[in-house]
């Protein structure tokens, strides 16, 4: 069987998560290799959640939150997410993992088509990068 990328997507409840709901209602298609996890706010995503996803079989992690500067429901959770993701990407690079496997995108509640596009685009990128673990075929 050919290898399919596995992507964990953390979406905030208010923007990207809502967009994912809308995408479903609109019957938009996106890659089934994505496991969406809805969290209250991207500012709530700790670096450990991202790293655990990688350690437990994810080939890529997508974080979707509210547009900066002013869309965040909790005022500045998206900036916290930006800082965490930025540092985790630097960490990934140092341990020999392509930082592109971790992507942050701002997707508002009305942008369902953008969500589908971003997900497909990211899955495609991860597919090109190949499996994260050394041995998985």
């Amino acid at each position: 069987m050919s290898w399919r990328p596995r992507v964990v997507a953390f979406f905030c409840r208010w923007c990207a998560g809502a967009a994912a709901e809308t995408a479903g209602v609109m019957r938009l298609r996106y890659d089934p290799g994505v496991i969406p996890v809805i969290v209250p706010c991207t500012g709530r995503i700790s670096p450990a959640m991202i790293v655990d996803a990688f350690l437990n079989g994810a080939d890529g992690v997508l974080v979707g939150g509210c547009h900066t500067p002013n869309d965040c429901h909790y005022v500045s959770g998206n900036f916290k997410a930006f800082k965490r993701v930025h540092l985790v990407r630097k960490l990934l690079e140092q341990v020999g993992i392509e930082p592109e496997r971790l992507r942050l995108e701002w997707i508002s509640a009305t942008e369902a088509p953008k969500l589908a596009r971003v997900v497909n685009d990211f899955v495609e990128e991860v597919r090109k990068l190949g499996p994260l673990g050394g041995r998985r075929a």
Partner: protein
Amino acid sequence: MLRLAVVPGAVCGGCDVALASLGEKLAKLLEYYEVVYWPTAVDRKLSEFLKLDSVDVLIHMGGISTEEDARLAREVSAKARVKVSFGTCSVYGDIPGLNSIYSPAEIRESIASQVDVRVEGDALSLPQPVNYAAYTDLVEPDILAPGCPPDDKVLDQLLELLIRYAETGKLEARPVLLGDPESLCSRCPRNPKTTKIVMPGIRRLYEVRPEEGRCFLEQGILCMGPATRAICDHSCIKVNYPCTGCGGPVEYGSDSGLSMISTLASVLLVDSEKVALERGLARELDKIRDVVGSFYRYTLRKSSAYRLRVLRRGG
């Protein structure tokens, strides 16, 4: 008399000094224990020591760097009733653990290219380096005493435990991680008066003169206090030097590097995020050139960053 042995792996000597610096308190310990082996302090051959069939307390210092370190640590641990992992090398791998960024083959290659052991045709053999590990990777100790080297607080707690063990033959729930179950910040003498810490940017130590008595983070200086277990009485912080995290994470098994990343995200430029925007924040964050070296200086070998590295290498 119970038997106490101090067995070193790859050590720098700091742990020996710390243990010896107990001074009079050490004499109290010797009322209960006979030191059957401690290369730095007691005159006894390893071969004689290995003939003993059991020891009551084993204090293991240092990391596992060569085959010999691993063999000795395993052999002695099997004979010990209470195993103490002493010092951050032994518990978390410490600074030598930073080499786990490289594969064992790369390390062997690097050593071979730098060290020439042939002398006039005769070959000396070097102890074979193994994939560097902490003592805790080999055995499950009963007491973990982190610190580089362990500070008075941890030493006092250890002494108390060992004396109680000698008197009652019992130990509390194992493993016991010494130090207080809170971060260094909890009782930091520099605690800010406000409830909100704002880090105004990231400065390196040579760029600023740290102000006495003021939170390092508030001055833009990286301080590992928030992600580090309270294993000392702020020895470094009190002499105006930020914590570098030698005590390891607050809870055994958690990850101090990731905690610190999280903390930084919560305090860096929080008052001006909407002005700095992503570009400004990235510019500040990029001043941290070495995320692994800054946040995992002492704990890389036992961290999830190391597990990611291993995953990437494919075992």
